[in-house]
């Protein structure tokens, strides 16, 4: 089982901070985990194209294999600093 964690709006959409996703084998890519997740939580579907993933302190690519020993973290579009692109800081 892989721990999948949600941040920002994804936590609200998923209704939870984290979920367990079953891994059929260890040679699974990020993309494959997201595909399985889409089945478990259909509401996430529309968000997934703009989601980035991380393990530990680094981003991972969609085609990268997942490290099954660490949580896969789902990061929606970011809004640090302050306002949106046309405004604020």
């Amino acid at each position, binding site marked *: 089982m892989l721990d999948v964690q949600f941040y920002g709006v994804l936590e609200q959409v998923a209704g939870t901070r984290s979920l367990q996703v079953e891994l059929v084998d260890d040679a699974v890519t990020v993309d494959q985990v997201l595909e399985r997740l889409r089945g478990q939580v259909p509401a996430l579907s529309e968000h997934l*194209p703009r989601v980035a993933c*991380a393990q530990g*302190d680094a981003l991972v690519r969609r085609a*990268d294999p997942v490290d099954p020993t660490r949580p896969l*973290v789902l990061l929606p579009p*970011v809004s*640090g600093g*302050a*306002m949106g692109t046309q405004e604020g*800081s």
Partner: protein
Amino acid sequence: MQRITREPLDVASLLGDTENDTCGAFVVFGGTVRNHHQGRGVAGMRYSAYEPMAERVLEELEEETRRRFGVAECRIVHRIGELGIGETSVLVAVRSAHRGDAFSAGQYAIDTLKERLPVWKEDFYTDGSRGYQDGTPLATAGVAGPDDGGGHGDR
């Protein structure tokens, strides 16, 4: 040093942390909570972060900014948790020999932070509703962010 913090941000202490006698100029940028957003009244907001990555992104962005603009000092802190109107959400401090470099470096740091830092903002509106602002996809998102290279270290 903690770059992601729940404590109020303090310009004076950031300037103290970056004191450097070889510098003739400093620029501090601050982002503050406005009382309006897209025509709606804002009462406050909450920032959340994926902290393990956020700390690393800020540390690397400081180093990249120093190198790219040849500035002696660059320090960035971002607050998380609930913030009221007028409170400071982010501070960027740059010190350099020449003033033009300090302005350019400060602007680069905040522009780039907004593309890379895993932080999310949830607005609390004056009508009682709340909502996450849409933002900028990170670089490895399915739909390309600012670039689609892997990792965030060397961009």
